[in-house]
């Protein structure tokens, strides 16, 4: 057994690098370890725990955030590489008390159960809907191919995104 009776605050520690990141519209500057990954920076340094972690290998999509509008897996994206970038997380999706249309549509379509994968699906879907083309169902399924949901069986999620896309297009639900 090893037990340190008084835990000392690190005075030296590993080297740090300075980063300045725009997070949900607010500029933050911090010193981070070079090995710090973006999801830990968001969750631990900034307290933005909406972004979750699951596979730690960028294959499940749970930790998806937008970096300069592009979806990335925050579990493997180095914080240092986000220096100077704008990062959007699930906390930045709604406008105050007003839910984003995707969030509303997820409620209406029962597109979540445990809710753990949901922030990733929302951010991945936002990236798609922010693009130039309004996607059809096939494009939505294709785009969400990197996100795992273990609860819903996906259909409600696809329908929820499709509904928002149709509204954008001024389609039957618009």
């Amino acid at each position, binding site marked *: *057994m*090893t*037990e*340190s009776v008084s*835990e000392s605050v*690190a005075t030296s*520690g590993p080297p740090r690098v300075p980063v300045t990141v725009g997070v949900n519209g607010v500029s933050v500057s911090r010193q981070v*370890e070079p*090995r710090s990954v973006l999801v830990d920076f968001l*969750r*631990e340094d900034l*307290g*933005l*725990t*909406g*972004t*979750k*972690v*699951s*596979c*730690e*290998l960028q*294959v*499940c999509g*749970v930790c998806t955030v937008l970096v300069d509008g592009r979806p990335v897996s925050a579990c493997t994206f180095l914080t240092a590489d986000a220096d100077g970038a704008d990062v959007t*997380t*699930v*906390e930045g*999706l*709604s406008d105050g008390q007003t*839910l984003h249309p995707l*969030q509303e549509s*997820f*409620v*209406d379509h*029962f597109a*979540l*159960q*445990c*809710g*753990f*994968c*949901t*922030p990733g699906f*929302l951010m991945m879907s936002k990236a798609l809907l922010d693009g130039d083309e309004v996607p059809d169902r096939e494009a939505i399924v*294709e785009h*969400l*191919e*990197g*996100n*795992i*949901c*273990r*609860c*819903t*069986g*996906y*259909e*409600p*999620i696809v329908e929820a995104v499709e509904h928002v896309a149709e509204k954008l297009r001024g389609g039957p639900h618009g």
Partner: protein
Amino acid sequence: MTTAAFGEPIARLEDPRLLTGQGRFLDDIGHQALAAAFVRSPHAHARIVDIDVSAAVDVEGLVAVYTHEDLDGRVGEPLPLLIPHAALTHGRTAYALAKDEVNHVGEPIVMVVATDRYVAEDVCDRIVVTYDFLPPVVGIEAARSAELLVHDDVPGNVSAHLVQSRGDVEAALAGAPHVLELDLDIERSASTPLEGKGVHARWDADDASLRVYTSTQASTSVRAALAARLELPLDRVEVIAPDVGGGFGVKIVHPWPEEVVVPWAAIRLGREVKWTEDRREHFVGATHERGQLQHVEVGFDDDGRLLGLDVTVWHDNGAYTPYGIIVPIVTTTQLLGPYKPEAYRAEFFSLYTNTVTVTPYRGAGRPQGCFAMERTMDAVAAYLGLDRTVVRERNFIRPDEMPYDHGLIFQDGRPLIYDSGDYPATLEKLKKLVGWDEFEAFRAEARAAGRRVGIGIACYVEGTGVGPYEGGWVKVETDGTVVAATGLTTQGQGHKTAFAQVVASELGVPVERVQVTTGDTRRFGYAVGTFASRAAVMSGNALASAARKVRDKALRIAGEALEADPRDLEIVDGVVRVVGSPPSAPGSSIPLATVAVLANPLRYAFDREAERATQFGGPVDYSKPPVAEGDSPGLEDTGYYSPPRSTFANGMHAAIVETDPDTAEITILRYCVVHDCGRLINPRIVEGQIHGGVAQGVGGALYERMVYDDAGQLLNASFMDFLMPYATEVPVVETDHLETPSPLNPLGIKGAGEAGVIPGSAVLASAISDAEGFAITRMPISPSDLFSLRLAQESR
């Protein structure tokens, strides 16, 4: 707003929090906590010779390193065997930290506590454990042959051997006109929730109390286990399941090693300590399920009626048996599905292997049982040249035979008696939904176009709502808010919504006004847990009972205030009123909020509303005490539901698949479900459970398998290598349903949580066999598996 909430497909009350990043999952709690990490065995079977931490001790930020010899008192004992059974003659459980020997890759040996997880893992990397290798037992064949043993003192690697029977199977088989034998094989899979396990503990030295957050399916039982292990009074321990990111069975196991040693370390160190399981840890340090070999002997007459069914199951229980033998018991009892063979005998051997321990995963042994039964039904139909649905129908238990006693003992220790269900009607609906009778025309059309298609069917009956009991507490606050609590936990089933619907309907209040808490021992201490599709049945009925008591009390108090007979009163939209009176008629109604004020006679007024309940506040009968004898203050009550036995839901699935003649790629063209889980509280939530279950069933049939090599290494312990279905793989699920109420509980409901997954492998094996023209006996099946089977068929 509506009070008619039961049965309505209302939106889930929990969604806005979860959609805006406000959910509080385990790792979102305890920001200031120290982090724990574990050194785990890289070997499947070995003796621990030495643990050298000398290279680790000077890492900055290290707080503590613990091994088994540090675990004092009961913390150092083997973990509990949760469900003992007379047939489990050789049950074995692990230590919280391995003592002397490890029995699977991933078994925890050393716990490190440090200022953050990065540092804790740095320390783990510097700890050197020296092992003496032992040859591992990997796979059921190796376990069965018993050339090597997992535990030296367990002969034959057999933890349990159980035989159940009804009638004389031997005679039935000997006298049957036709007898067939089948050998079947189901591989391992796992629950694989997207959030792994995790535990956070905080010791309050001033209060001498422990608060533990854990991602569990059984917080009250974790509490009892921790109090016992840590030798604390139960009332000094609080356990809370926060938002839980999926469970699917794996989180019913408790206490996990980490669930014991993290709180233990928090007490020792006087600091918050947290451990969050990473993905690889979950693959090798949690639990798996499904793996079985089965041998079936079936005797039947010329019409396909089963005269005798004899099933032997070799069940891989992995390295330890913390959850007893529930899985093989469920397999061998639920195997019968909707059928009634004249004689039945089921025997199982539960076998140790040097692999991750096996405990229930959604379905809990039923998918394997369904696979055995349904493969058998298809075999009988093929042998006799009969339609597969005809053979099934001829063996169905008829509605007028309900309740039907199988003469066996179910997993709750009670008789296996089906309470209700209409199997012929279910089949009829399914045939119509999938177009069973029109399929041959479609097949001919497809064949003409060079395509290969097949249709499959599988039926199941699922024992749900397993006891012993659940409880519920309902209280009307003085602002009219209704708070309710039940002790079982939630992992995404929408309990806060469904239970609010039950309470709102019983009480007569808008559903938006009901706030439900689950899985928090501070709010409700008596509970069992969330498993076996039991939450809606158990806590639904318990909360309904509590709400009814509260309603009766509200009517009584309102009757006194309104000078009316309580029998003439009703509660509508949170207002007590004389039946049929207009809402605003003076003197004929009183808000439930005011009744709540009156229900608690006060000495002191703290606001205007409370004045009414004080001694000079209003007209009262001064000849009676303020709180009547036998009554209690407050508009609240508690109710329990304890069923005589399980209630049995049922369903049938049909699938149409296409198999590529060249590449053997398997595509699901259609997937149809007809299910019957009694009365529905919220149809959309039930549908979500079915759809999610089907996705896991498809995963188990076509993609998910745990690949162990001969050394006991799990080769695909990551989401990169363990295939799960994505949006591109799960078919659109077409559903229809029946609502045959359960006579066993007041709400008439049956469980639905596991239903969707049960027939997945059976129905897809049936469809693929139909497409290919030969029987599939091993699942899951990949395109390369199917390709190999084709080659083997050609060379026969």
